[in-house]
């Protein structure tokens, strides 16, 4: 157990510093939900940022926003989760190599390395402490959070900077669309739940958190526990895991006030989300949120930002309707997500 004492998030919604919690809601009508980026020179030396790709800039900026938000000088560890790292840089190299093997542009090669974000954050903050990067599909951010919790519990760190980041590109989208799981055409994001176009809606974003040992006046919420489940045999097994997970944290199913659902617009994917929660937590209110940020490997970062803010503000924005009704109290929130029913993750956030 630890506390979320700072957040820095760059997302397709109004989440930059100074914005009102998701107000107004941002409508997207292009191929995927693209992040609203900050003015980078506020966070990165313009000389250095000139050569950086978008993902690296988003990563450094959101990390710096997070550290500023927490009001700390220096984190004791920096941990990043990313499903695909810098897709833009990887594509540049693959493009160059497609014609022939030759001397490449070194910058994209260096930036395509998955640990570039964590290490650029370290260089920017001059932080010599523990530094790592998890790269495991929709467990990428979850693994960071588990690592952060272990370090807090073991007492090896007081403040851990942990976050998840992924970007989408048109080329990458054209590949994943061919797999048949994603929407093959652009839709209006706010119509995601009524759209007749089948498949998931793609998105992107960066979200860093300061995970701390102590509750302070900066605390948003308590990060109680994180668990991952690989390849469950059945929906029943997944639901059992949910119940065991929350009971290990001293809660009964009826104590969970709200579930942030992993639905992304893909019918089969959403059916699994609904079945799991219906079996495990039949009385909890639930909400879907991916119409605001789209689907990507580290999307739980957006969900954790929502949960932390909902608990601190004791308020749910109008863009996130709850079903079947608004929760009577806001004490315990469960975030469930899954990656095509192979990787399921559960994050318990408490007031």
């Amino acid at each position, binding site marked *: 157990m630890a506390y979320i004492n700072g957040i820095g998030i760059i997302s397709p919604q109004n989440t930059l510093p100074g914005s009102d919690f998701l107000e107004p809601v941002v409508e997207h009508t292009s191929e995927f939900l693209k992040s609203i980026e900050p003015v980078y020179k506020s966070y990165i030396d313009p000389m250095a940022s000139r050569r950086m790709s978008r993902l690296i800039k988003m990563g450094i900026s959101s990390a710096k926003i997070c550290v500023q938000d927490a009001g700390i000088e220096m984190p004791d560890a920096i941990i990043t989760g990313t499903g695909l790292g810098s897709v833009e840089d990887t594509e540049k190299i693959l*493009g160059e190599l497609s014609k022939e093997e030759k001397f*490449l542009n070194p910058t994209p090669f260096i930036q395509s390395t998955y640990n570039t974000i964590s290490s650029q954050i*370290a260089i920017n903050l001059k932080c010599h402490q*523990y530094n*790592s990067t998890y790269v495991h*599909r929709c*467990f990428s951010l979850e693994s960071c959070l588990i690592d952060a919790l272990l370090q807090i*519990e073991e007492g090896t760190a007081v403040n851990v900077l942990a976050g998840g980041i992924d970007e989408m590109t048109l080329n990458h989208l054209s590949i994943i669309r061919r797999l048949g799981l994603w929407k093959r055409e652009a839709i209006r994001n706010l119509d995601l739940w009524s759209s007749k176009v089948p498949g998931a809606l793609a998105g992107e974003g960066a979200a860093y958190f300061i995970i701390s040992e102590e509750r302070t006046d900066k605390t948003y919420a308590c990060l109680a526990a994180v668990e991952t489940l*690989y390849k469950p045999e059945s929906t029943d097994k997944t639901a059992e895991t949910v119940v065991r997970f929350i009971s290990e944290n001293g809660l009964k199913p009826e104590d969970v006030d709200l579930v942030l659902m992993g639905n992304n617009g893909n019918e089969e994917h959403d059916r699994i989300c609904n079945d799991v929660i219906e079996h495990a937590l039949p009385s909890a209110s639930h909400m879907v949120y991916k119409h605001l940020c789209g689907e990507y490997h580290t999307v739980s970062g957006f969900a954790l930002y929502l949960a932390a803010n909902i608990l601190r503000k004791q308020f749910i924005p109008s863009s996130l309707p709850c079903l079947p009704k608004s929760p009577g109290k806001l004490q315990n929130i469960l975030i469930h997500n899954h990656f095509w029913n192979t990787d399921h993750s559960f994050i318990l956030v408490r007031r």
Partner: protein
Amino acid sequence: MGNRVVITGYGIISSIGMNADEVLHSLMDGISGIGEITKFETIHKGKLPLAEVKRSNEELLELCCLKSKKKYSRTTLLGIVAARQATEMAGVKPGQSYRTGLVSANTVGGMDRTEDFYPLFLENLAKGKLSEVINHDCGDSTEKIAEYLGICDLTTTISTACSSSANSIMFGSELIKAGMLDRVIAGGTDAVTRFTLNGFNTLMILDKEGCCPFDENRAGLTIGEGSAFLVLESEELALKEGKKIVGLLSGYGNANDAYHQTASSPEGIGAGLAMAKAMEMSGIVPGNINYINVHGTGTQNNDLSEGMAVQKLFGEYVPPFSSTKSYTGHTLGAAGAIEAVISLLSIQHNCIFPNLRWTTPMKELYIRPVTTLLKDIMVEHVLSNSFGFGGNNSSLVLSKYNPR
């Protein structure tokens, strides 16, 4: 002292052997795996050396008793071979009631297949075989290994460039110490890809003759491929099960150089911090280390920076050290685990393996690597260094197991 983490099995596949026995013999006999390119398709054939695993993907599939080659990247196949050896040695079987996790590591996932996909795809976005690109992400190989071994508890992947699998061993140990898991199969795997080879070539840090770490005339690294995994268990469980314990993971440290994306600080700040942290956790002082398996890539920058950090930390009494990358090449995401296995072999067989191809001392350093096989030496504690781009520096201390 809390729960100790012991090693009950290991597996390795590299250019110097298809398993630990073969690797040990090559190390003892001074046989390097670095040589002319034979399997890998590239224009650099005949010009740049590599440390290849001398088996085709078809042969690796057969070794794993797998049928379809479509679903597996070479990175995955290498990983399966090593992980299976490790679990067999430790007697880990699916269906046992212990919570068993898999923490793997790699640097480019299924890039070996993505780069086959890309040329056709770029000509026409509707072209290119999808089966070649679905293995692209780093998590894919880990999940295939987990599936092969029947592991369904915590499964994850780390990528911190050349220190990746040292970090997966560290994280595996943390999960056991915290009581989240009873045992973890931890390591890493990486195959040679055109992406990596041409990338490093662009940075002009590949030695055309094969790497000679810590030599004044070193000209860069040599890319290798391979995989290694350790089976980590809580000491309590290993004793209860009557397992043969092959070593103790007594300490580790992770620090960041925070200096430059691709260059190490001249004085090796991050390297020094990582080594010091590892020894501190191990409860030992520099004088207790019997052997340092250095990162020693053979690049101008690494060897100088690492050498300075070692000199600063160990002072006058630097223990015998060598870079076994002179045998295996630089196996990138697999290097930390491969060198952890080599460190265990050193402890088990009381010998220290030489740094091949070394002739001339570096003028900035007073230390010299071991250049002949040292036998019948009591090796109780080995410090194994893995330093990566981005200043991601990690060190492990592997120790002889003594019951408490």
